[in-house]
């Protein structure tokens, strides 16, 4: 019978390895986060490296140490993610209201001109460093589209006016565009906030008037006309409290420079809807 030596050899080899490994695991046991093992069991174990960590054990260690999110594994479905989250003892973030990026400047070239012809690296940050940017308004959009380049979701485009337009549907409120803008013109706002002051200038009215036709001059008309008292002035700029605003649209109508915008329609700011 040739079967017996084969069975014996392989079986013994296996047994020896099993015992040695198990014994070694005990002897060389290193204290580690007990959750790490549990998480590791949840992960697919393909050691594919797609998460950016070296293998599933690496990711498990990172998750246990809090260096990676529970859903860092791109191959894990929702079930596994919630399992890992429960191991880690954290609640999954509650779904909050969707925020979208809003561009707070409407100063296209015809409304707020250029001081000079810029020649250099085609990025807003670079232009901002050179004599404070070519835009007459030092708070205005430089229009080189760094926010468009930064967006990973194809949610910002250059509109017909040479100013960025946000696509509410694609926007994931990741904030990349906010970071990319050297002038803090882009801000994340709840999608339900329908009335927006599309200007960021903190200059006094006279200077704003000098450099831009559509900037907030801090005249305070909106503050007066708002039936809900939702608008205040700070640094010569109108601020809308979204809690109080009921989108009646009176301020939009009364604003002398038309810098307050109703965003019901997509592309309301700098998009086609507003262009005509």
């Amino acid at each position: 019978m040739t079967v017996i030596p084969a069975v014996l050899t392989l079986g013994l080899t296996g047994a020896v390895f099993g015992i040695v490994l198990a014994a070694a695991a005990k002897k060389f046991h290193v204290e580690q986060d007990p959750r790490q093992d549990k998480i590791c069991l949840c992960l697919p174990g393909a050691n594919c490296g797609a998460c950016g960590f070296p293998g599933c054990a690496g990711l498990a260690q990172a998750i246990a140490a809090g260096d990676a999110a529970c859903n860092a594994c791109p191959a894990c479905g929702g079930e596994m993610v919630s399992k890992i989250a429960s191991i880690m003892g954290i609640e999954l973030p509650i779904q909050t209201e969707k925020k979208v990026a809003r561009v707070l400047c409407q100063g296209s070239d015809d409304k707020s001109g250029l001081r000079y012809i810029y020649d250099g690296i085609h990025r807003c940050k670079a232009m901002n460093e050179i004599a404070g940017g070519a835009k007459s308004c030092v708070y205005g959009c430089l229009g080189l589209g760094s926010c468009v380049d930064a967006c990973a979701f194809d949610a910002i485009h250059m509109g017909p006016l040479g100013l960025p337009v946000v696509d509410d549907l694609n926007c994931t409120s990741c904030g990349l565009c906010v970071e990319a803008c050297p002038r803090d013109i882009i801000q994340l706002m709840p999608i339900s906030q329908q009335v927006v002051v599309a200007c960021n200038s903190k200059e006094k009215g006279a200077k704003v008037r000098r450099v831009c036709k559509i900037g907030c001059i801090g005249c305070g008309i909106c503050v007066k006309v708002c039936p809900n008292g939702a608008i205040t002035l700070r640094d010569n700029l109108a601020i809308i409290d979204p809690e109080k605003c009921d989108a009646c649209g009176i301020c939009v109508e009364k604003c002398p420079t038309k810098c307050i915008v109703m965003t019901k329609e997509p592309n309301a700011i700098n998009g086609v809807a507003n262009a005509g």
Partner: protein
Amino acid sequence: MSFKSEFNKGIINENPAFRMLLGMCPTLAISLAISNGIGMGLAATFVLVGSNVIISALRKVTPGRIRIPIFIVVIATFVTTVDLIMAAFLPDLHEVLGIFIPLIVVNCIIFARAEAFASQRGIIDSLADGLGMGIGWTLALCGLSAIRELLGTGTLLAIPDFGFAGIRIFSQGLAAVMAILPPGGFITLGLLIGLLNLITNRRKTKRQQV
């Protein structure tokens, strides 16, 4: 998921060679002729189906901590079986596929399916998955082999070890031998995956536009 959909996904959407980029080593090494591709693909499919079924069957009794050694033993058993059977009944093909038959053991496709699929799913699903993945890989191998064989030798479906010259498309003198050398393998596969990406991307943008 039905048997059919588990089977289908391996052929196109999750094709191991082109989409999941598993099992690169044998894919590149043996894709010199269509005959090799078929042989290797079928061998791997057999192992894949067998190991998937067994591992799926054992999934309830496998202790988590030594699941890896157990998978390895199961897979290796199948591989050796294929190796021996091939040596006995298809000696010429066995000669050509050489070292890559034992290396099916460490073919990441098989390991990945065992770990990611079979160890968590029922036997029927695992069977379908193994079959789909195996055939998907075989098809990918055949596709790549066909290109390399055609460019490199000017023939299709040649099996020189059986004295079958295949279909000659153009003369040997015109053939770019590099296609069947190692660099040709890398470059052809790279371009092929690139081409597939291009097609999918185009389709995606088209769908978006619609």
